[in-house]
Structure formats: structure tokens, C-alpha cells
């Protein structure tokens, strides 16, 4: 290369036709295509590592059996029925719980990506910043739906009576909606925190009080007053109550529905842009 003092005038081969517009803005179709390619990546992960589905497949089974057979008799009796009454009570609660428990995994998986050079590659490619996030969320929603399907199967096996099918679908839709809003929080944690372990630990810390300080597992009227105030606006209670009202008879829907929707909209409006911002700025 001793002759390299002369600048070579050979033009670099033109790239194949790229669909970006002249100002480089990425259109909706391109964004969907990019998100699709990244969804495929995440699905391939699951295919190669089926164990990563264990939480979605086993959590609904373990928790349902545990609560129905360990606590079901006592709580059901206190509710004025028996284990059967508790099954009708707790299954909609489980649905609410799944929406949050599965959502948590999105943060740890995302954090792991940052420790590999792959995120730098994505960020140096001409793709929308959001598509990496949307792909993750789409795959987590699929995982949520699988967890919910397993849950309903176990529910029917332990004697749950689906009193309203349209109600069931509405409840599933609501919990997926809320679950995807919660994912934005975990995505922010995933971008911000240093290790997947800390994402998991902090996620657990946030989830436990929300899940147990709610009407998911037991009616709240025997809790102390301050806790009842908390549970009333806890989105986990809201979602559990709304699901209960939608799937079974004899429970009000409205309050829970409003609480859930308010949280869903609030979280999405605040956390989604923040997550995209944090992601774009991360260096």
C-alpha cells in the first residue's frame, strides 16, 4: 500500500436499494419490518432455549395448585363457601398476577443484551430506536398469552367455572394491556440498572407488595384500614377485581376497570417515551 498517498477515486460500490426516505426517516412499514425481524430473533431464542418458557408454563400451574389446595379450604370457608368458592375467587386474581410476573422477564432479558456488543450494532443500524423495544414487548405478550392459556387449563381442571366467555376474553385483553404497560417499567429498569440480577431483585421487591397487598389472593375487608386504602388503588387489585367481575357473577367491574385503565394509560404515557429516551441515550 505504499502508493496510497494518491487518493483512490474508485467510487465505493453503491448499496442495494434501501427503502429509507431521503431524510433518513424510517416509515411505518419499515418499522414494522424491523420489529418483525427482531421478534423473529426473540422467538428463535425461545426455540433454542425452551427452558426460558418454564416461568410462563409452570408459574400458573404451581401458584394455582398452591393457593387452591393450601389456602383454598380455609379462605373459602371464611368467605362463606368452601374450596370451590375460593377457586372462583382466586383464578381471576391469578390472571392479574400473571400479567405482572411474566412482564418482569422483559427487563432481565433486555439488560443481558446490553452486556453484549449486539446492542451497539442495533443502535448503529438505520432502524427506529423503538423497534428493539417493541419486538421485546411483542414477544413478552405472546408469553403472557401462553401463561394465561395454561392458567385457564389448570383453572378448569381444579373446577373453575367460566361464567362468561366474553367476560373471559375481556379480562384477558385487559390483563395483557396492563401487562404491556408494566413492561415499560421493567424496560426502564433493564436499561438503567447494571446487571440482570439487580433488575430481577428490584423487580421482585416492587412486585411482591403489589401482588400480595391486593385483592388477588384474598378479600381485603379484613385487612387493616391503611392497607385497604392501598389496595383500593393498587392496580393489581383493580385488575383482579375487574377480571373477577368480568369472568364470574356477583362482583362489581367498574371501579377495578377504571383503576386498571388509569394505571395502564398513566404508565404507558410516562414510561414508554422515557424507556425509548433512555435507550436512545444509553452509551
Amino acid at each position, binding site marked *: 500500500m505504499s502508493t496510497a498517498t494518491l487518493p483512490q477515486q474508485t467510487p465505493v460500490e453503491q448499496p442495494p436499494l434501501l427503502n429509507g426516505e431521503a431524510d*433518513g426517516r424510517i416509515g411505518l412499514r419499515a418499522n414494522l419490518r424491523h420489529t418483525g425481524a427482531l421478534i423473529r430473533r426473540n422467538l428463535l431464542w425461545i426455540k433454542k432455549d425452551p427452558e426460558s418458557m418454564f416461568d410462563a408454563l409452570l408459574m400458573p400451574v404451581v401458584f394455582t395448585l398452591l393457593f387452591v389446595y393450601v389456602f383454598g379450604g380455609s379462605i373459602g370457608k371464611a368467605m362463606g363457601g368452601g374450596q370451590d368458592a375460593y377457586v372462583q375467587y382466586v383464578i381471576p386474581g391469578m390472571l392479574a398476577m400473571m400479567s405482572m410476573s411474566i412482564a418482569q422477564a422483559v427487563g432481565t432479558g433486555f439488560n443481558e443484551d446490553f452486556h453484549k456488543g449486539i446492542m451497539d450494532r442495533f443502535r*448503529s443500524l438505520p432502524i427506529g430506536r423503538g423497534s428493539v423495544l417493541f419486538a421485546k414487548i411483542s414477544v413478552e405478550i405472546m408469553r403472557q398469552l401462553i401463561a394465561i392459556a395454561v392458567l385457564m387449563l389448570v383453572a378448569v381442571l381444579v373446577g373453575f367455572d367460566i361464567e362468561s366467555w366474553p367476560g373471559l376474553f375481556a379480562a384477558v385483553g385487559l390483563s395483557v394491556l396492563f401487562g404491556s404497560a408494566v413492561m415499560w417499567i421493567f424496560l426502564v429498569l433493564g436499561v438503567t440498572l447494571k446487571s440482570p440480577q439487580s433488575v430481577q431483585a428490584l423487580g421482585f421487591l416492587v412486585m411482591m407488595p403489589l401482588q400480595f397487598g391486593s385483592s388477588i389472593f384474598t378479600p381485603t375487608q379484613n385487612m387493616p384500614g391503611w392497607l385497604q386504602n392501598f389496595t383500593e388503588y393498587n392496580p393489581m387489585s383493580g385488575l383482579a377485581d375487574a377480571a373477577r367481575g368480568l369472568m364470574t357473577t356477583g362482583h362489581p367491574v367498574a371501579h377495578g376497570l377504571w383503576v386498571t385503565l388509569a394505571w395502564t394509560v398513566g404508565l404507558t404515557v410516562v414510561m414508554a417515551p422515557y424507556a425509548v429516551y433512555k435507550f436512545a441515550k444509553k452509551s
Partner: protein
Amino acid sequence: MTRSDKNPTPRGQSAVTVRGLVKHYGETKALDGVDLDVREGTVLGVLGPNGAGKTTLVRILSTLIQPDAGTAYVAGYDVLTQPRQLRRKIGLTGQYASVDEKLSGFENLYMIGRLLDLSKADSKKRANELLERFSLTEAAKRTAGTYSGGMRRRLDLAASMIGRPAVLYLDEPTTGLDPRTRNEVWDEVKSMRDDGVTVLLTTQYMEEAEQLASALTVIDRGRIIAEGQIAELKAKVGGRTLRIRPADPLQLRTMAADLDASGLTGLATATVDTETGTVIVPVQSDEQLTAIVGHLAAAGFALADIATELPSLDEVFLSLTGQKASAPQDAPARELEEAAV
């Protein structure tokens, strides 16, 4: 900042133009006013020790981070105001292989093809082409996590080439590779260079810059301390290195000790290079060279080979910065260099 019509780049000449680039991290000045140009179709080596600011430079030029001050144009686009257009023109191979270890080689390349808006058929075709070119066809279906270091680096290079970038950044592409694997990566870079790809290569290894780059920018603590064609930089430093190979390799140490004792090595000392089986002595003049050879003959050493070399880039760096470039260096090398300048 300015649009490309005010672009200071002379047309068709400079693929990368950087002026006064500054990036601070708190008190640390990662880049402290860097200017550089990479001409189209050439390889510019950016040489510097760890923490010199090389990676910061590459990250700014690939739009991953923003500079605090200064301008940079790549393929005619401004890194600050036109990052989206710019990203279509670049390929990046970082220090850590940026491939998805859970996917196979093919799946990695296919995914990037799709992200670069190639059709499904074209993505597949391009992936297979590049697997072939980087000798990964056999391993195409294997998970990248099972690849050797060299294979992973080659896959990384292939991934950077999917979009046929006008400018390719190679950020320490062989750091952490064994010598054989390093040569594999070098061969690939050479063949890309021969195809006319513009490359900005950062490295800590002088040998690597010498092998791959035509022009060189030496950077230290965020500042450029020297730049020019490699031959020019070497000529600046002056002096030669004499390598003597005794017929009997067991005599290496005795010969070095004998030379040191003779006083013919001046302020420097003779060093033993067991890898090549030679004794290395820096020489300043033809007279000194003649005296050394004469002395060895008189002392009865049987010599198998004698060669003189221009100083290595290690020595160039040392003379420019007054410090060692990359970590492991023999102490005598410093004295040698001080003697030479």
C-alpha cells in the same frame, strides 16, 4: 450544525472528516480536539494505548454517542444532524463481537439483512454470500456462541459488510485473539481493503497498523501526537535495528552479554528474542554496525544470519510519546529508544 452543502470535505476525497472533536467524561478528556481525515478507499490506522480515546472516537463516528464539541462527517453526512442517513453508510465491528450468540451464523446475518431493508430472498442470498466469503459456510447453522474467537470476529466482520458500507470501522478487531486467528482476521481486512472499502482501524498493535493501514494517526490521552504515512513516520524516528542470529541458538544469551560487555551497543543494550532466535541491537551508524559484526567474528561466534530493519512502530510510538504503547515491553526497549532519538 451545517448541512452537507457546507460540508468541508473535498468531494470524492475524504470519506471521514473530523475537526476539533471533543468528548469529556467528567474530568477525563476522552477526546481533546481531534482532527483526522480518511481518504476514500484507504485504511487509516488510529494507533494508541488503552484509554487513548480510540473507542470514543469510533462511537461518535457511529452515532452511538454525541461529541461535546467539534464536527464530524462520514460519507458526506453530519454525525450530529444526519445520524439516520449516516447509519446507512457505515459498518461497525467493535472490540467485543457484536453478534447474537444465541443465534446461528446464518440467522445473525439474515436478521441484519432484514434490518437493513433487504428483501427476504436478498437477505438470505447476502447472508450465504458473506458466510462463504468469510469461510463460515460449514458453521452457518451452528449457534454463534459455539464459535471460536476468530470465527466470531469473522462473523462480526460479515455482519458489518451486509449493507455494503461506504465506511467500515474496525475497533481493535484483533484484541484478545491468538496470533494465528489474528492473521485470519488480517487476511479478511486486507481483502476488504483491496475491494476498495474505506476503513478506519483502531489498534494498540503497531504490527497491525503496519500490516493493514497506509496512513496512521497516533493518538494519546485524547490528542493526536503524530500523523502521516507509515513510511514517513518510521523515517522520522531514524536509526535501525540489527538482528543477529547465531548458528547455535544456545549462544543467544552469551552473545548478548558479550555485546553488552564490549561497549559497542552504546547506551542501549542487546536484547534476546527467543521467538526468532536472534539478538537485537539498535545501531546508529554503519560504523557501529561494522564494529559489532567485526567484534562477534573476532570473539569466535558462528553467525547464521544478519539483518537490519527500520524501527518498528512500537519504537516509533515510544519516541513520540515517551511512553510505552502497549503493555508488555522489555525495559531495555525504552533505553534503546531514548538512545535512538
